[in-house]
C-alpha cells in the first residue's frame, strides 16, 4: 500500500525533489500491532487466528480489525474453513505481503543510516 503522503527534501530551487527515507516507510506495516502480525506470519507458511491471538497478545477485536486492514491491502490472505465442526480462520502472508515486509525492513535500515551520529 502506498503511503498517504510523501515528504520531499529539495535543498534548492531546480533540484529534483528527494524522498526522505522515513517518509517512504509503509505506514500500514509501520503500525506496531500489524507489524507483530506480519512478522509472525512471515516466519510460517500459514497460521490460524488462535495462534496469532496467543502469540501477538492482542484482543480478538483488535486482531480481527488489523487482519482486515492487512487483507484489504493485499498483504494477508484469509481463508475461513472448518476442521470437523470447528471453524478455522487460516491466515497467510501473500507474496506481495512478504515483499512489502522485506521492503519495509530495508527502508527502516536506510532510515537509520541517514540519521546523524
Amino acid at each position, binding site marked *: 500500500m502506498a503511503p498517504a503522503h510523501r515528504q520531499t527534501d529539495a535543498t534548492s530551487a531546480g533540484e529534483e525533489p528527494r524522498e526522505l527515507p522515513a517518509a517512504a516507510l509503509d505506514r500500514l506495516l509501520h503500525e506496531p*500491532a500489524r507489524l507483530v502480525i506480519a512478522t*509472525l506470519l512471515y516466519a510460517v*507458511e*500459514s497460521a*490460524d487466528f488462535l*495462534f496469532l491471538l496467543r502469540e501477538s497478545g*492482542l484482543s480478538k477485536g483488535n486482531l480481527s480489525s488489523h487482519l482486515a486492514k492487512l487483507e484489504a491491502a493485499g498483504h494477508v490472505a484469509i481463508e475461513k474453513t472448518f476442521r470437523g465442526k470447528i471453524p*478455522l480462520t487460516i491466515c497467510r502472508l501473500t507474496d506481495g505481503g512478504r515483499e512489502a515486509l522485506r521492503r519495509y525492513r530495508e527502508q527502516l535500515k536506510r532510515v537509520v543510516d541517514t540519521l546523524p551520529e
Partner: protein
Amino acid sequence: MPAPGEAASDPPLPPSPAEVERRFLDAERRARRYWYEDGLGEIAVGGFFVILGVYFTTQRLVTGRLGPTADVLLNLLFPVIVIGAGLGMRRVIGKAKERLVYPRAGYVAYPQKQRVPKWLTGMIAGAVAGLVAVLARSAPGVEAWLSAFQGFMIGGFLWWLGRLSGLARFSLLGLVTALIGVLLSLAGGSSTVSGALFFGAVGLALMVSGWTAFRHFVRANGAGE
C-alpha cells in the same frame, strides 16, 4: 500472552529498527519453538528410542538361542522399526497435535523449504553408520566408545535444537544424553548391552521431559476452543 480473564491490549512499542530486527528474529524463533513447545515430539522420539532399547535387549537375549530363523527375523525387524519410525513419526505427531495442541493454542503450517531433503538426511545417516562400522571393524577398541559417540551425536543435535528453539530443556537433554553415552562407554560391556541401555535411558529421559512439557502446555493453554 495474557492470562485467562485478563484484558489483552496492544503491546507498547515504538518500532525502532533494532526493535523491528529483534522482533523478526523473535517471531522466527517463536514459530520454530511452537512445534517443540508441547513435548509431543519428545514423547514420540523417546518412545522410538525405548523400542530400540527393547529391540537390542531382545537381540542380546535371543540371538543364537532360538535358531537361525529367529535370528534372521530379528535382524530383518531392525530396518522395519527404523523405516517405520522414519515414515510414521511425523504423521503420528501431526495427528496428536491436531487433537491436543491446535484446538488449544492454534494451528501453524511450516514452510516446506525449511526441511532438509530426505535423500540428504538418508545419505548423511548412511555415511555416519558406514564410518562407525568401518572404524569398529578396523580398530576393536573403537567399539567400546560407540555409546559415547552416539551420546555426542544425539546430544549435540538436542543441544543445537535447544539453541534454535530457545527451549532450555533441549540443551539440558543434550548434556544428559552425552553424559549417558560417556558413562556407558567408561563402564565397558558389549556394544549390544550398551546400545540397549543407551537408547532405553535416553528414550525414558525424552519421554519424561516430553510428558512434563505437555502437562505444562495443557495447564497453560486450557481446554481449548
